[in-house]
């Protein structure tokens, strides 16, 4: 196994790492960097609990050999989301609407929702459902999670023209 070096903008900070090229991004985050907010629920890209944002796109970090992310890639994990205003607004909305139960899916949900609001500040219910469809939740039935995203979107529209 050959180690490679990559420099990414991880949660806003330029970060240089050495790792075996095939190492799953999820393992790199959780084990090498102790960023354990991304969870492993299935290891095959079905549950979305390991979702992180790669250049603003939600992706399942369990299916990505970390070496595939070139230098300069922007990575956002749940640990970095609260540095963003839209992230904080989303987190607060999740708390206030009762969108959190066991919490295992929530980091991935918040990131998927964050990516949605970046692209679409005024999402319809259908757009929210579609954006969250890759994140399984077994506790909530999604109702309050969808409500949280709506609430956050409304608050962000009220106070600023561009989330972030």
């Amino acid at each position, binding site marked *: *196994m*050959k180690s*490679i070096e990559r420099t990414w903008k991880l949660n806003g900070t330029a970060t240089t790492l050495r790792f*075996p*090229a*095939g*190492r*799953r991004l999820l*393992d790199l985050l959780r084990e090498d960097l102790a960023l354990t907010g991304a969870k492993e629920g299935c*290891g*095959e*890209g*079905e549950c*979305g609990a390991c*979702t992180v944002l*790669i250049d603003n*796109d*939600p*992706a*399942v970090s*369990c*299916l*990505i*050999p970390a*070496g*595939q992310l*070139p230098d300069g890639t922007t990575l956002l994990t749940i640990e970095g989301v609260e540095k963003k205003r839209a992230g904080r607004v989303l987190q607060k909305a999740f708390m206030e609407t009762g969108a959190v139960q066991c919490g295992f899916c929530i980091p991935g949900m918040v990131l*998927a929702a964050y*990516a949605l609001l970046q692209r679409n500040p005024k999402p319809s219910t259908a757009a929210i459902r*579609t*954006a969250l*469809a*890759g*994140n*399984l939740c077994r506790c909530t039935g999604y109702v309050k999670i969808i409500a949280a995203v709506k609430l956050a979107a409304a608050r962000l529209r009220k106070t600023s023209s561009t989330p972030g």
Partner: protein
Amino acid sequence: MSPPMNFDLLNIRFPKTLDEAVAFQADERTRGRLLAGGTDLMVQWAAGAPPPQRLISIWGLPELSAIRVSKEMVEIGAGVTHAFLRDCTDIRAHVPALVAAAASVGATQIQARGTLGGNAANASPAGDTAPALLVTDGMVMLASAQRFRTVPLTAFWTGYRQTAAQPDEIIAAFLLPKKGRSVERFRKIGTRKAQAISKIMAASRIRLHGGTIESAAIALGSVAATPIRLGKVEAFLAGKKLSRRLVEEAEALAQASVAPIADIRSSAEYRRWTAGRLVRDALENLQ
């Protein structure tokens, strides 16, 4: 349980250009399995399939990332992601079934990494984009160190998880004739409304003129070892006046011309029946 896949052991090369990539593939000693977004391969390895000795990552190669729209054609680079296709407004009018198919892949996370070329190379009969590609009567462009060559999409999937690409070739692009006045339709029946592998899916490109079907291209996924065109149904429809009876006959003909299997997602009988139903759906939505 067998030991889990140790992804750290994957041997991946990262060519920076298509030239570098085809050079790796030209030599048996450096040749590797091509890895694009990983949304199929990584899952297979996680589930216990042994990974190949060498991998060549073609994710992000600039030559594979472009979409070009010309007068007659849409050219889509093999590295274009489903998310890009889904959101790309330039091509929606020309290959709408493909855009709909891309939007039906997995969910946003998989769409962001999965590529059109990867979906085609994976050659699963349930590949979501294959039927929509098939009905365009387009070509796939294959690159090797020596040359580029094109293969008709209808000749590309040669068997279960087999394609016409040679070991030294990389899928570079898809050359898809625009639909023009034809009507396209895509419909997937999945196990649920997102994050689903299809039970069956259909794409069609049909041209109607004055109530007569001038041409029909209809393709199905998940009913055979490869995605297939319904040649018999297409031939039957060509030149005929659209009528309720014609729709019924086409539906029955479609059902008679497929021999699907049962698996964990659906039964052979349901697939056979819906093969006809989806042909009906295509013919009933031509306006």
